[in-house]
């Protein structure tokens, strides 16, 4: 019996919510019963045992009040699974009994509300194992068939729904009984089997999803490790190039010097691409911290402007910075750095010689808005629809800078989403592009 009483639900079903829902449904049912009985008593004055019926409705109200108080006040909505199992069984038993007597006293099989047992069975099948559902349905069928037989044999009285419906009722009693019993049995079977099928499907989806997630994690970690390994050899290559350009290895011809400097530029690009892949792989792993830390925005901006200074100077691009020193944003340093370094590096990369890039930040209500504005090549509205897609690069971006992963903006977007912020972009071809990042503001106390 303990096995039968055990609830049979997936871990995703919030049983407390189901209990709350049951109680609410019962309040609605009680209101419906009172409304129908009241209307019948006033308007039709049928030959029904109204005192008994109103007593049943009263019992329904009192019981549901008790259930409500037990659940919400005594237990404060927190019940163990075993307690919930007993709680649901008590509710289902009382519901079955009350509905049975309500129906019995109002014409029994004459009364179309007999079929409301279908809903009761579906609700039972929603939370209990098939064994228990069949037990309840079996008991119901026996009670229905037994009562019908007892009525037929005049062992118990029949309470006609309409005056004078008696003789016809007894003539139709057998098919009505078979109809109701068959409906209840089929409903019990369908309810449990449909639920079982749905659960099997859900389990399969869950297993597939887990497998996919773990594969994805392996892939991201692999990418993270591999890209790291690439930096070592690149550092050595850069080192030798630098030894040559500094004349440490001996005098070199201007032509050799130019060739080596070109090689250095390409290895710099390669390094940027590797960093983008590392950031991308990082965003795909489960290592991204979500704890809301407060970070001084100005320090982040300054550090990134300084890092980018050589590239900006090489193109005589002026990088202007406007940010109040007290501004704090709700983002880890890593994510903040990823966002700002990628935005600035794009702005410098796609701006013409001698232009200006402005990075500014202001407080806007509960958010901090970071703006990065350039006077670069800009984008068409059609291109703007795709810029946050992975590996997408505009045609002109590819012309200006051959090396690139097309991951930068997708990384920025993922980082912004990770901290619960927003990103918007406005752009005009040959006029420039402006990105706005809205950071949630860090809480004022603590850092």
């Amino acid at each position: 019996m303990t096995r039968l009483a055990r609830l049979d639900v997936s871990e995703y079903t919030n049983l407390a919510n189901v209990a709350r829902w049951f109680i609410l449904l019962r309040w609605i049912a009680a209101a419906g019963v009172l409304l129908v009985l009241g209307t019948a008593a006033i308007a039709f004055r049928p030959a029904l045992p109204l005192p008994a019926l109103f007593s049943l409705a009263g019992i329904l109200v009192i019981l549901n009040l008790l259930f409500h108080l037990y659940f919400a006040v005594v237990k404060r909505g927190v019940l163990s699974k075993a307690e919930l199992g007993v709680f649901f069984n008590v509710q289902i038993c009382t519901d079955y009994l009350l509905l049975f007597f309500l129906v019995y006293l109002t014409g029994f099989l004459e009364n179309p509300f007999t079929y409301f047992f279908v809903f009761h069975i579906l609700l039972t099948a929603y939370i209990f194992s098939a064994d228990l559902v069949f037990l309840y349905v079996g008991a119901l069928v026996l009670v229905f068939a037994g009562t019908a037989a007892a009525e037929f044999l005049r062992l118990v009285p029949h309470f006609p729904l309409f005056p004078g419906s008696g003789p016809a009722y007894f003539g139709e009693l057998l098919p009505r009984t078979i109809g109701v019993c068959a409906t209840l049995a089929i409903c019990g079977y369908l309810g449990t089997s449909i639920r079982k099928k749905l659960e099997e499907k859900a389990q399969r989806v869950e297993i597939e999803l887990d497998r996919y997630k773990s594969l994805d994690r392996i892939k991201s970690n692999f990418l993270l490790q591999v890209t790291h390994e690439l930096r070592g050899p690149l550092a050595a290559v850069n080192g030798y190039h630098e030894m040559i350009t500094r004349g440490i290895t001996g005098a070199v011809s201007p032509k050799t010097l130019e060739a080596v400097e070109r090689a250095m530029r390409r290895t710099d690009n390669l390094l940027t691409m590797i960093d983008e892949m590392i950031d991308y792989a990082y965003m795909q792993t489960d290592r991204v911290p979500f704890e809301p830390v407060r970070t001084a925005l100005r320090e982040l901006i300054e550090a990134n402007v300084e890092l980018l200074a050589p590239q900006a100077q090489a193109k005589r691009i002026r990088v202007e910075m406007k940010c109040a020193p007290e501004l704090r944003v709700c983002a880890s340093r890593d994510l903040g750095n990823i966002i700002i370094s990628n935005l600035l590096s794009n702005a410098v990369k796609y701006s013409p010689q001698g232009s200006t890039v402005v990075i500014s930040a202001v407080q806007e209500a509960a958010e901090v808005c970071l703006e990065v504005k350039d006077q670069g090549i800009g984008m068409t509205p059609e291109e703007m629809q795709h810029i946050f897609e992975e590996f997408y690069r505009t045609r002109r971006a590819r012309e200006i800078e051959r090396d690139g992963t097309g991951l930068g903006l997708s990384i920025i977007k993922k980082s912004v989403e990770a901290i619960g912020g927003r990103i918007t972009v406005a752009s005009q071809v040959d006029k420039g592009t402006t990105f706005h990042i809205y950071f949630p503001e860090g809480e004022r106390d603590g850092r």
Partner: protein
Amino acid sequence: MGGKILIIDDDSDILETTGSILAHEGFEIHTADSVERGLELTDKVSPDIVLLDIMFPESRTRGFDAAREIRSRHPHLPIIVLTAINREYAFDFTKEDIKAVEFLNKPVRTKKLVELIRRHLGG
């Protein structure tokens, strides 16, 4: 001004290039291609500053132990970590964990490296 620098890295090319470039800047350079050799040289040549890698063939975080070891023997010796790991987050450690004074990503820009070394040598 000069200063004694010990570079500990298992990559001989990094030892060669970083060593040559820093020697060209006027520093006295000692190199070690393993943590053991590095610890030995730390005691023997008493460097003014140590440049340390983190990933070694024996383990991806061997440099961690090396830093702790050096710190326990020479509490005031500045350690600059130079590593291919370009973001601290990637391997879940911080500058404090490594007991380093600075944390730089390879490839390092010479200007920045020299600046840092001079700052820590009090120049």
